[in-house]
């Protein structure tokens, strides 16, 4: 059950041996509780103004034992993150001291905060709108710097601003249609070509937002990159090179990797899971054949496949076969083991590879000594971003609920455009434009629906 009336406490910094650990207390009794265990020279916290810092000590009220030195930050309602009275105690001690201080707070009447409860209180107390609250969740979940940046932008209301602009344009078109319904004597009849142009522009803008959403989702959820190839071409070695640690079992025996191994790397800010697959070959070994089947599924479900070939044996028909079975998937053909062939042989092999695959992008690397691995990372990054380096800057929408609403809006706008093109009476155009307006409103919260709130409660994140 949800209680907003009690005072909650939690360790606000991530667990581990950090330099400083912060205990956050929020609620009506936050300042009273802090005053009972935080002793500083001069006045009590309750006599101090908001937004001030105070140096003092944490003293157990029962034993009078000094636990730690601390700085108390005081934020009075409503000028705090949660809009409630908040005291943050920055302590110096390690995890043990922090949990002792936490226990003191609970003894003095605070309740241990549920996961995400500070953010939820901020939302419930009107401190942020829905899109911002969701962004906080994304930010906490965000695994890399780039996705964190997108979440921060969304939280600052950039998404709301863009969608709000879209909505106001939409209202403008709708008004220009509806005014002709009642006042054509004064304003004339509907200008169809102009309406067509304006709806088309709305479609473009909504699609722009969606494409940014695609990038946004990419940032939050990451891409899946699979390494494929015949047995023993060095897939696991490449995985290790990308991970920069020994993770896969690397042996010179074919078929060592019998299952799918997945690891997350940070690729220039994009979270990417790298999947090492079993070598693709016909096999009688039952265990291995299961691995091969799984490998094929994995490849089909990846955003990108690195098709690895052995420079020593060269690009063969078998590689071409694998390539053709991967139609529809982005593939980078890569020659491995270039440390084992001459420069001449390598070039000849690359030329053959380019002829065979008609791929403009192909690389030669040595997974073993790391040569060319960085170039491979660059190439992957370029493929993911489609050459758009500004990806991280433009990513706005990191939430699939928002993307879905925008998609519905585009669908409705397209129907409205079709109605306009067919020169049907103006009233019919308004029906789909109104639907688009409602959808866009679901993002900013302008269209209030109960399930949004329900979902937010369910979805609420861990942390904060």
């Amino acid at each position, binding site marked *: *059950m*949800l209680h*907003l009336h009690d005072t909650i406490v939690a360790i606000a910094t991530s667990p581990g041996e950090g330099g400083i650990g912060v205990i956050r207390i929020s609620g009506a009794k936050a300042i009273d509780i802090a005053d009972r265990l935080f002793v500083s020279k001069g006045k009590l916290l309750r006599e101090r103004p908001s937004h001030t810092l105070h140096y003092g000590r944490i003293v157990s009220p029962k034993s009078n034992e000094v636990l730690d030195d601390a700085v108390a930050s005081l934020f009075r309602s409503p000028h705090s993150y949660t809009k409630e009275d908040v005291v943050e105690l920055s302590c110096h001690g390690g995890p043990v001291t922090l949990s002792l201080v936490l226990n003191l707070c609970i003894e003095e009447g605070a309740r241990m905060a*549920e*996961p*995400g*409860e500070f953010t*939820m209180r901020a939302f*419930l*107390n*009107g401190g942020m*709108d*829905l899109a911002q609250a969701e962004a906080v969740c994304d930010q906490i979940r965000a695994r890399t710097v780039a996705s964190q940046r997108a979440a921060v932008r969304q939280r600052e209301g950039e998404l709301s601003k863009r969608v709000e602009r879209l909505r106001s344009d939409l209202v403008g078109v709708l008004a220009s249609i*509806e*005014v*002709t*319904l*009642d*006042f*054509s*004597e*004064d304003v004339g009849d509907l200008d169809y070509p102009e309406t067509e142009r304006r709806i088309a522009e709305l479609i473009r803008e909504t699609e722009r937002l969606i494409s940014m959403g695609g990038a946004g989702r990419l940032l939050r959820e990451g891409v899946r990159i699979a390494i494929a190839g015949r047995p023993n071409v060095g897939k696991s070695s490449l995985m290790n090179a990308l991970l920069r640690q020994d993770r896969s079992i690397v042996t010179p025996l074919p078929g060592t990797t019998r299952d799918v191994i997945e690891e997350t790397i940070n690729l220039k800010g994009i979270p990417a899971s790298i999947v090492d697959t079993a070598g693709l070959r016909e096999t009688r070994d039952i265990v291995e054949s299961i691995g091969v089947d799984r490998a094929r599924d994995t490849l089909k479900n990846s955003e990108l496949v690195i098709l690895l070939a052995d420079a020593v044996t060269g690009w063969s028909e078998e590689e071409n076969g694998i390539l053709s079975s991967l139609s529809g998937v982005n593939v980078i053909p890569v020659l491995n083991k270039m440390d084992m062939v001459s420069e001449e042989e390598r070039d000849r092999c690359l030329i053959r590879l380019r002829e065979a695959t008609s791929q403009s992008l192909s690389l030669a690397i040595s997974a073993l000594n790391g040569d060319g691995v960085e170039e491979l990372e660059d190439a992957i990054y370029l493929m993911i971003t489609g050459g758009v380096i500004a990806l991280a800057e433009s990513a706005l929408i990191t939430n699939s609920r928002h993307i879905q609403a925008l998609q519905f809006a585009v669908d409705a706008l397209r*129907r409205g455009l079709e109605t306009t093109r*067919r020169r*049907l*009476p*103006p*009233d*019919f155009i308004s*029906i*789909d434009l*109104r*639907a688009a307006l*409602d959808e866009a*409103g679901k993002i*900013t*919260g*302008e*269209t*209030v*629906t*109960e399930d949004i*709130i329900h979902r937010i*409660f*369910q979805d*609420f994140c861990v942390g904060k």
Partner: protein
Amino acid sequence: MEPLTPNASIKGSLSIAIGFNAEVKSVCGADGGLHAPSYDIIVHMNESNYDVIVIGAGHAGCEAALASARMGRKTLLVTLNTDRISHMPCNCSIGGPAKGHLAREIDALAGEMGVTTDLTLTHIRFVGTGKGPAIQTLRAHADKTLYPLRMREVVENQENLTLLQGSAEEILSTDAARKRVKGIRLGDGRIFHSKAVVVTTGTFLNGLMHCGEKRTVGGRHGEVAAEGLSHSLADLGIRLGRFKTGTTPRVDKKTINWDRVEPIPSEDCPPFSFIHEKLNPPKPLLPCWYTHTTLETHRIIKENLHLSALYGGRIKGVGPRYCPSIEDKIVRFASKDSHPVFLEQEEWDSDWLYVQGMSTSLPEDVQIAFLHSLPGLENVRMFRAGYAVEYDMAYPDLLHLTLESKLAEGLFLAGQINGTSGYEEAGAQGLVAGVNAALLAGGEEPVTFNRKDSYTGVMIDDLVTKGVQDPYRMLTSRAEYRLSLRHDNADMRLTPLAHKLGLASEERWSIFTLKRDAIESEMDRLANTFLTPRDNAILRGAGTDPVGTKVSLREILRRPDINYQWIRDHFPADAPIPRDVADQVEIQTKYEGYIDRQKAQIQDFSKMESILIPQEMEYKSIRTISMEGREQLTRVKPISIGQASRIPGVTPADLQMLLIWMKRRSCDAGEEEALDS
């Protein structure tokens, strides 16, 4: 008891009760014709107790009183002048964009406006054609004399209804904290008791007429204003504002230069009333005539703007945005060098023409000058100058959706007093107020109308939820779900309710059920009758694509190049399909995709409407809602989250907080599963 001193003339066999009740037996049906049947009058002396009292017998008052009486409540209708029942002081037109929809809804609810129009109209046309079936409707001119006459006959012949001439000066109520009305006191001191009072005083509360600089006290031309009632309403705590409206000059038909105006004939239209098969005017329909303003007209008006009462600021009241005076139009649409003007005959038996589009309050000599600048009106004689009237209105945000005041139980307000303009707006409100007054008097549950089912619901929700800043006029663009709220299906939407309430006569109900069944069976037939390649010659003849396999008539009718008439011509049903049924079948088939998409929107809407807010909600204690939001919510006391979402000043964030607060409260009460955090 006062001595019987008649203060109203009694005409022919028509009787007016003066301080006593005239009960009429052997009445004509609710939907009866022009001819009054013979009847006896039974007089009850000293009768002063009623279930419902209606003050004012205009378009709102008549519908209110008739509805209440038809629901079996003993009803008293008090009016200043029994000769002016359902009078049409402004344009004598019924219908027009969105107003036609309201007129049809009044009829679907067994009100009198549509029936009376069909029997007394002089002219009729379609409006809004080409803008979609949701917009299209009818606009008629009624005969200025016959319309009120017919309405008065209906009122006088209505069982349970007593008509009384008098001036209601005071609403009587209990003095308790929760006020409850007890009845009314007339200017002559007589007192009548009732369980409910419906106030429909139009523009008569402190009415003040302006014509240029000339001012006359009165509600409309030649009539006195009601003053005492304003004080009485204010004493009950009702907040009054000042609105203004205007009317146009009337001119002499004999002085028109016919070569320079364009006649617009009446069109072949279906009747307003669903119970009529066709229009039934007493004489052949008339045309109206089109002319327009000229640069000279605009020059004259601009030069004299400072003399206009409507424009010059002499009137403190707020004027209508959507029915602007010619002064307003010329200033607001400065780039237009011409505005349309229609000359409309007010009745068959006179030469009075209404100059539609020229509402004004400029001085008489200026009006004559600008009239002479209109093509065809060069030598026109003005019978009566246009004038403006300003009047007290009661802010409607203090009403429940039943039109009962939040300040006094049993007090209902309807019509122009609520800040609306137009006869149709008034009539629809009158019906809703009358029905609810009757339900309250009978101790029954109230009935409300909502945005998805009727224009009436849209209007009342707008009035109560958003309030009014200027005279409210119904517009099609106000109705979000207008494709479902067409004027042609008003009966399908509302007549079942009228039947349930006891408003609809048996005759009306059987006409309704016949039509409903006919639509259903014809829709079925179209879905189950198939064309095959053997019919391709006929299809090619219509200029439409041939079929390859069997295709239903329903699919064929969906084609843009096929209409129902073609189906009727080539693949007729066994029994002839009446026009109104055919229209329904055609619209429902052709526009099914759009109608279905709007239905999906209505479902979303209904979800929010169905989340009810407890009426005892203390908004002040929900501090997460903005200050402004709390104030507005406290003022309006919305019944649902949907209604709350339409209150100006209540933000989406406020609504989320309200929803969350309600959820928490139900969690605390253990009614629902706990929220996940």
